[in-house]
Structures are given as C-alpha cells and as structure tokens.
C-alpha cells in the first residue's frame, strides 16, 4: 500500500501537530471554518504551536480555541474580558503571539469597552471576532451586530441598528483592520496570516453564520446573504519570502504589495476597483458606504505603519519577563536601609 508522505512546515511539524479537540459546535457553524483556517494559517507560517497562546471570552466563538492548537496555552476567560487577559499576558513573554477569539456578543456588547481600550493600548495580538449576529449559546437572542428588522423566534423584531465592528476598530486606532466571511476560506486564511505577521493589534471581523439561530436567507450574517453580498476588495495572498512572490508571475500594475512587520508580504491583486488599504479616509468611506448598502466589503480594509505597542512603552528586558530569576526582582538591603533612613 502506498503511504503519502506527510507534508511538514518550516519547523518540521505536520498540520496534525496544530490540531485541537473535536469541535462540539453545531455542524456547519461558521466558527468551525474559522478554527480550521486558524490551524492552517498558523501551520503555514511555520512556527511551532508553542509560540502562540489562545485567549477567549465566553460564547460559542470563545469555545473555539479548544478546537485547534492543542499545544498552545489557552485561556477561556470571562464574558467580554478577553482583551483584559491579553493586556496582562502580553508582558509575560513578549515573544509569544496572542491570538484572541471573541464573538459579537462578547465584543460588541459586554466587552465593547475593553475592545476599544485594548486597541487604544495597542496590545500586540490578533483579535478575531466571530460575528454571527446573534447569541448562540443562550439560544438565539439579538446581538449588537444583528440587523435592524431581523426577526428571531421568541425575540420578535430587532428594533436597533447594528454596530459595525470594523468601524469601531478603525476609529479606535487599530493598525490592522480586516473583514472576512467564513464562507471564503482562502481569503480568511490569508488575512489571518497577515494579521499575525503585523506587529500591534490586528482586528479581523469574520462574518460567521450561525446555522441554528440566524441563517435565514435574509439575515445579514447568513450563508446566503454572505454569498450574495460579499464584495472582496482584492484577491489576497500572503508570502513568507519575496522570491515566492516573484515566482508567482503577477502582471506589473495589477497588484499592490506590502511588507509586513515580520518581514513577510501581503499581496493584494486588484479586482474591479483599486482600493488602497493604507488610506484611512478611504477605509472610513468604504465602511460607511457598505454599512448603508448592507454588503460586506471583505479583505484588508486598513493597515498602517507599525505604531508603538504597549510593550514598547516600557523599558523592559528582551528576555521573557516570566523567566527572569527571582534574585533579579528584589531590591537590595542597602536600598531598604536608605528608605528607612529617608523616612526617619
């Protein structure tokens, strides 16, 4: 019998080394697609799973991290508070990349304040919102991203307008803002890779249908709506080496290439319109317009020059703080003697 050789990534690990526990979410849930693409993206980037941690809040989205990257530390914390965990954990070992997972209930409602402030602090992390426009785990209530006029069983009609999480991220100062649709797996995977490759906070709002409670054809976050109303801004591909990019044979003038902070590249091939994701005003216009006309402009919406992260604002040793020996943490007795003297 012929055995197919297992494909290995740059650090010599197989995709299966990045797997998680079997998912207990509903079959067909958009979140399962996201889990798969996180696993693929991290594997393709070629660093061991031990170089990542997974943080999440509460809800269907936040159960997700259990279903990929078993070998990464995970913390399924409290509802809406995932960004606060990141704000502490990021100092423990700055070489570890934080993957944050949240939902629309978790981020857009109970955790909105923390979401804004974790962006303001520029905590270096990838922040993925698995946005299904409803509360799944409590069985089908409206969320802050549910469409106005949406009808749900037991809930009646949603009277309030939705929040646009990309807009919220952008105006809070995020340096990387993207939107993806769980049904468009290739684009999603490339965006996750780019987000991880960029320093600072990277927010991806992933429209992720809830097959059980909010997948009616006319629901803003349904598969049908996504299929019919997704408008990719560009055709995306992430490259680790520039050589690979050159070998791809893109026609000059048809694409835009950006070097990311870790030295890798994101290439955006033009589609019908030329969109410049480094133009903040263009991003604001795009989000305003797509919100009004209820379609999903997906892709890299905004990327800025790297800004100081929260870690850069402190003069800390290069080595992981959680490995600094206890003998280096306690001031000397002479220092205490001097304090006693000054207080006498």
């Amino acid at each position, binding site marked *: 019998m012929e055995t197919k050789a297992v494909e290995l990534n740059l650090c010599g690990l197989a995709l299966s080394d990045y797997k998680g526990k079997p998912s207990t979410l509903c079959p067909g849930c958009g979140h399962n697609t996201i889990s798969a693409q996180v696993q693929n993206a991290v594997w393709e980037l070629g660093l061991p799973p031990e170089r990542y941690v997974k943080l999440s809040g509460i809800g269907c989205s936040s159960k997700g991290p259990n279903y990929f990257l078993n070998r990464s530390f995970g913390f399924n914390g409290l509802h809406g508070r995932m960004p*606060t965990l990141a704000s502490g954990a990021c100092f423990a070992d700055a070489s570890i990349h934080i993957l944050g997972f949240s939902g629309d209930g978790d981020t857009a409602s109970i955790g909105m304040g923390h979401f804004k402030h974790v962006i303001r602090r520029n905590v270096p992390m990838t922040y993925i919102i698995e946005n299904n426009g409803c509360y799944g785990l409590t069985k089908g209530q409206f969320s802050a991203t549910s469409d106005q006029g949406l009808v749900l069983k037991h809930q009646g009609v949603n009277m309030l307008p939705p929040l646009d999480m990309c807009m919220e991220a952008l105006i809070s100062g995020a340096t990387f803002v993207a939107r993806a649709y769980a049904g468009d797996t290739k684009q999603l995977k490339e965006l996750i890779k780019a987000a991880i490759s960029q320093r600072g906070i990277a927010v991806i709002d992933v429209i992720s249908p809830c097959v059980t409670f909010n997948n009616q054809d006319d629901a803003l976050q349904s598969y049908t709506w996504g299929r019919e109303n997704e408008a990719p801004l560009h055709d995306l591909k992430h490259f680790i080496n520039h050589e690979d990019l050159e070998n791809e044979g893109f026609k000059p003038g048809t694409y835009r290439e950006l070097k990311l902070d870790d030295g890798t590249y994101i290439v955006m091939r033009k589609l019908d319109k030329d969109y410049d994701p480094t133009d903040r005003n263009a991003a604001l216009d795009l989000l305003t317009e797509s919100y009004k006309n209820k379609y999903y402009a997906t892709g890299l919406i905004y990327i800025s020059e790297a800004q100081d992260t929260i870690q850069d604002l402190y*003069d800390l040793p290069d080595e992981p703080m959680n490995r600094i020996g*206890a003998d280096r943490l306690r*001031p000397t007795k002479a220092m205490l003697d001097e304090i*006693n003297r000054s207080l006498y």
Partner: protein
Amino acid sequence: MIDLSKITYEGEGPIVNEFCLSICTVNGSGSATANHILYRTLFHMGIPTSGKNIFPSNIKGLPTWFVIRASQKGYTGRQPYDDIVVAMNQVTFEKDMTYLPAGGVVFYGDHLTLPETPNPDLIYYPMPIKSLIKQVDVPRKLVSFMENMIFVGIVGQVLRIPLEDLKFTIYEHFSSKPKIADSNFSMVKLGYDYATENIEKHDRFVTEKLPPMEDYILTDGNNAGGLGALFGGAQYCSWYPITPATSLVESMIDQIDQLRHDPVTGKKTCVILQVEDELAAVGAALGAGWGGLRSMTATSGPGISLMTENIGLAYFAEIPLVIWDVQRVGPSTGLPTRTAQGDLSMLYFLGHGDTSHIILIPGTVTECFEFGWKSLDFAERYQTPIFVLSDLDLGMNQWVTKKFEYPNKPIDRGRVVWEKDLEELEVWGRYMDIDGDGIPRRSVMGNQSPRAAYFTRGTGHDVYGNYNEDPKNWSEILGRIGKKLRSAIPYLPAPVFRKAKQDADIGIIGMGSTDDAIREAQDKLAEIGIHADYMRVRSLPSDTAVREFIASHSRSYVLELNRDGQLCDILSLEISEYSEKLISISDIGGLPMTAAWAVEEIIKRERKVGGSGN
C-alpha cells in the same frame, strides 16, 4: 459625641507630651506641608505621634482637619476630643471649639471672628498671621502656604518646641530644595519670634525632647504596601484610580525607577498599567498572573464589587494574584474619604458558588510592608487570589512605625514547571495533585515543551484542564482546592497577643488599624480593674491560636469598625463551638476607633455580666 464636662486635666503644672491637636483649615489651601512639619518635628523630638487627615471628598474649598496626637505613653489612636485647636477656617471655627474641654487651647488666625460670647473655660491665642505676612515679600501664589508656616512657628513656640528642631525638619523635608527650605524656615521663625516676644503662655501643654526613636520611621500604609510589593518582586500591577487605594500604586510608580532595575540588563522589572475600569484592572492582573508574572492590583470596596467575577475565576482556575483592598466606608459610594472595616465579610465569601479566600490583615504600617511582599509569595505558592485588607486610616494617614525589615526569606515562585521539569515528570496534568498536598504544578505560557500547554477555563475541568461535567470530578477538583487553601493556614501571619498584666478571664479581639485604640483601651480598662488579654487577628481563615485564645477566655469582646460585627460573625462560624463566648462590639461612623468608645462599650457589657471587673 463624648461628654466634655467629664474631661478634666488632672493636677497642676505642665502637661508634658500628651495632647491632641487639630489643625482646622480649608482643603486645597496648602496646609499639608505645615501640618507635616509640625508632626514630623514631634517625631524627631522622640515623641510618639500619629497624624490623621480628616478630609472631604473634594479638591478645594471644603473644611479639612489634620489631627496630631502626641503621647509619651505611646497612645496614638484617635481621641474623641481635642486639647488644642489651630483654627484657620471661619466656617467651622465655632464648631471646632466645641471639641475642647475646659482648659483647652485655641490658636486662631486673627482674621477669624470669635463668637460674641467665647467659652470662658478655653485659652485663646490670636495669631496675627495676615499682618505678619505683610511684613515680608511673598509671591502671591505662595501666600497661603507661607501663612501656614507662620502658624507652625507660633504654635511651636507656645508648645515649647525648640526652634532648631523645627529648622531641622524643614531642611530635611526640603532637602533637595534649599532655597524653598530657607523661605519656609524664615516664615516659621517670623511666627516663632512673634510668639516669643508677644505671647504670654497660660495653658499647660508643653513638649519636651525624649530620646530619639531610632527604630522607628514615619510614613503611611499605602507607601509601605507599595514598597512591600516592590521588595516582593511584583512584576505587574494593573489598576484603576480609587480613593483610598490610589496612593499605594502611586507609591510604586514613584519608586520603580530607584528600586526595580534589573541588575543584569539595567532594564525595569515591573510594569504598572492604568486601565479603563476595575474589571480590566483585575482581568489584566489575572492575565499576567496566568502568564507567570508576580501580579497584583489595588482597589477599595467598590472596586472589589466590580472585580468579583474575575476573582472567582482566579480562584477556580487557580491563578496567583494579589488584591489590596484599602477600605473606605460603604455600602455604595458611601464615604469615600473615611475609614471602615466593612469589607471583611465580602472578601471572605467573595464570588458565586463555593469559594473561600485567604485574607491578610495588616494592623501597622510596618505590616503593610511585610504583607506587601509576603502576599506575592502566598499567591504563587497557593495559586489563588490573596487579599490584603487595609483601610483608609492605615493607608493614607501618617504613622510612627517600626522600621521596615528586609524580607527574611527568598522570593517563593511556587510550583512552576519549565521544560526541564517536565522532562522529569512522567505523568503530569495542570490540576493533578502530584505532591499530595492539594497544590498542583503549574506551567506558564512560553514553555516550549509540547507537553506544557493546557486549556485554562472557569468551567468544569478535569486534572488535565479538559472540560468535564462529571459530578465526581467536580467534587474532587473543588475538594482539592479547599484542601489546598486549608494547607496554607498554618503559614499565614499568626495573631499578635498583648497579655494583661495579670491573669485575665476576658479577651479583646480586634484587627487592622484599630490596634492603637484597643491597646490604649486595654490599659484604661486595667486601670479600673478590668483586666483583659488582647489578640489581634492578622489573617483569615483563622488558625488554632485564635481558637485557643477564644477557648481560654470566658468571654471575648470583638471590636471592629462596621455595623454588624463582621469579624465576630466569621469567627463565630469558624469556631462555632465557642461562638457563645464571642461578644460583638461594632460601630461605624467613618472615623478611626477611639479607646474611650471601646472602654465605655466594654464597661457597659461588663456591668451586665455582673460587674465582675475581675
């Protein structure tokens, strides 16, 4: 309010080094330095003193009082009346004088108007501050500061504080700014010289120098707590400003630069991060503790209310974390600038479901330092939130306290397993009781062993951290956490005892900042024949020593600053077989406890018991 007619100054002649002096000003008028100079000079003269700031929840313009108690006998708790009033605020002038018994002294700025019929039993010294200040050239914005220094000179002279001691303190206080020291001292001297030439002393209060208090320092509990944390190797503190906890974190901010340079790289080894609210403060501290940093936050009661859900998570997910609660008066917003011991029950039972917490209760400023570093060791050793319960009186007021002692044991990082440790462990699970004492081994992020990672959660989990709803598993995991906490009890700060001078049948139990008042009460009771042993509880859950104390006395009075007697309740629960021996005496008004109140309340109850009075 105490009946002042019962207060009489015994004997004749000078009353030496025993007085309570209140400086009555308007907040924001720059009196803090003047108060401090007066107070610190007394300390330099070797006189035990305390300085309590009774201030409004306001920035400028409302009445504020700084109360100095000097006591050669060492009684520095609050006194319910004043012996000397320094009146600088017309609004409160008349009322301020009602706290003086016959023979009491009033220094008043002569820009204040005396009542039409002043109390003839008081002694008045007008202070011509406004006319004195006109004699010198003072920049406009400094006028009120300098006026305050003039009263320091006048009051100092009348109390017979040597001018050179005032001078010493001023130059010490402004040691880095000699010019400012010069101008402040010139104002003090102006007042001092005026008093020498113009005031004839006819009150009885005087000071006399005592041997220097060489083993003591002068500071507040929040400074001590912040320093304790820095000497304890705290690496992370996320916080949100709240009175009266703010100055604890600010003390850390102020002193990190001097104290926390890594000897190897020269970089800093402690991060302080102000965040958007208390939920984030504790959440971020939790993230850091989970990540393997020595982590803490500091807040007050309202902040604890907001932090509760996260603290329950820390308890159940077994994450080290230190939380300072510097208490103010609740419920609700309460009295933000007043002191209380009303958060004890909340902390003890904090969180939904089955929880229990370790609470350290410092009763002196020196203990704030000590528990500041110890709490971090306990948190990492037992992988659980550790509370340090202070209060506004201890935290924000000035105390003469024993010098800080350098930690007598190395930093304890608890059972953290790194790559090498895991190689040696054949079987391991994050929540497995490998060592049989309920304390599991802990791996943290960054550990590169493929066996290191686990999934932390607040949901039911097995010994590997996997989701689990099995009833037996739940009961085992929670049972082990209980066992772990109980195993800590013998190592927590033991109670402190102050025995009566003769065999005593009665006990007095207290905690925290009421120590001074209770010690004074204990002595006053002894003077009238009620002999009582005193025990100050310094941690909960309580150890056998607390039980033995209660068992060995026929009754014990539990004195505390809250409405319902929370410490008494908790001890009654923990030591239920002797609960009938515990008698609660509690009250709350926002001010520190006084010995007079404690004495009165105990006498009242002793009379009912049959006036044994031993």
